[in-house]
Every structure is written in structure tokens, then in C-alpha cells.
């Protein structure tokens, strides 16, 4: 079993890249791999709590919480959050707020890194 770090910059709603990342993380965790998820740029919109579920939009809140319960480590960029008005207390419980150096350190310790650096 290996370690996979996934970094994403894409918004919660839009490109569906976060849907992809979460599904990938889920599948990898179910196979016994270790997965780290780094949310930066507009992807920090995923870390905001109280997302209301609409069938029209990506709604990843529940599955994210479920995966964190199974060991998914989620880190959300501190400055990216702050610039968007998302405070520490606004985060989904269990998400760690930190800087990109933690993502790089995790990446260096991972077998695979998939960085999705687009909107």
C-alpha cells in the first residue's frame, strides 16, 4: 500500500475537479492506501461548513466527512481561506488549516502526487 497526495485549486462548484479528487481519494482509501488532500486557491471553498445540498451543484461535504472518518487527511490553505473571508471556525470539523509548506512536506513523503492546478 502507498501514500498519495492530492492537491487541488479548483472551486467546489464548476469544473468538477474536486468531485474527481474526492472520488479518487475515496477509491484509494477503500483499497487501503493513505491519502492526503491539500485544498488551495478556490478549492478552499470546499472547506467551508454549512454547505446546503442541492442536486444542481457539487455537494461534497458529506462524503468528505465520511472519508476523514476513514483516515483522509485534509489541509486547507490558511491565507486562501482568510482572503475569502472563511475563518478558522467556519471550517468543516477535522480540516486542518495550514500553509503550503505542509503540502510540500507531505508530498515529499508520498509515493505519488497528483496536483490539479487548474480552476
Amino acid at each position, binding site marked *: 500500500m*502507498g501514500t*498519495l497526495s492530492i492537491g487541488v485549486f479548483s472551486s467546489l462548484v464548476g*469544473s*468538477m*475537479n474536486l468531485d*474527481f479528487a474526492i*472520488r*479518487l481519494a*475515496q*477509491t*484509494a482509501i477503500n*483499497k487501503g*492506501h493513505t491519502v492526503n488532500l491539500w485544498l488551495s486557491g478556490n478549492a478552499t471553498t470546499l472547506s467551508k461548513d454549512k454547505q446546503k445540498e442541492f442536486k444542481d451543484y457539487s455537494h461534497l461535504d458529506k462524503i468528505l466527512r465520511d472519508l476523514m472518518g476513514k483516515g483522509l487527511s485534509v489541509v486547507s490553505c490558511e491565507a486562501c481561506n482568510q482572503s475569502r473571508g472563511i475563518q478558522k471556525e467556519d471550517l468543516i470539523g477535522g480540516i486542518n488549516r495550514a500553509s503550503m509548506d505542509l503540502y510540500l512536506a507531505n508530498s515529499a513523503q508520498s*509515493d*505519488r*502526487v*497528483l*496536483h*490539479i*492546478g*487548474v480552476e
Partner: protein
Amino acid sequence: MRLALFYSDLRGIESIYNRITAHELGVFLVSNGIYHAVLKENGKPSPILDKKDATFYILKEDLETRGFSDNEVDKRVKVIAYDDLVDLIMDKYEKLAWL
């Protein structure tokens, strides 16, 4: 190197894609990249499928989301699910790049 390239869009990334080579190269058509396996623009299959010595994969979920099915996929491209995708990137390819 053993490189997995995620081809994620319909336009704008060909020029970089065309220049990347690797000892072992997997091209994963995901997101709007899937159109390259199913459309014949101006009557021709996408030139991105002509890349030498590459293995092509397409993500079934992303294909079907956009209204296409397995039988419309170019014969050079293998339809895979998330399950296969995880095995391929964890076992076969060592470096991953999202275009």
C-alpha cells in the same frame, strides 16, 4: 520515466502535450478531455491519439456524464473506472501531471 498525463480539456493544452515524451507514457482522458476519444472534428479523430508509444485510458464516469458510451470510444482508448485508475497510478506510473 513512467509518466501519467491527465488530459483534462478539449482545447488549449495540445501544444504542451505534443512535446512531452516518456519511456512509459499513460494518457488519461478525464473531464472534458474525454471528447478527444469520441468526437471526430472535421471528420477526423483527435490528433492527440496519434501520440507515439502512449497508452490511452478514458474515465467511464466522465465519458457518461457527457452523454457518451463505451461503444462510441475510439478503439485505441481503454475505458476504465476509478478502481483501475487508482491501481494504474499507484502501481504502474511513478509521476503524475495534470494538463
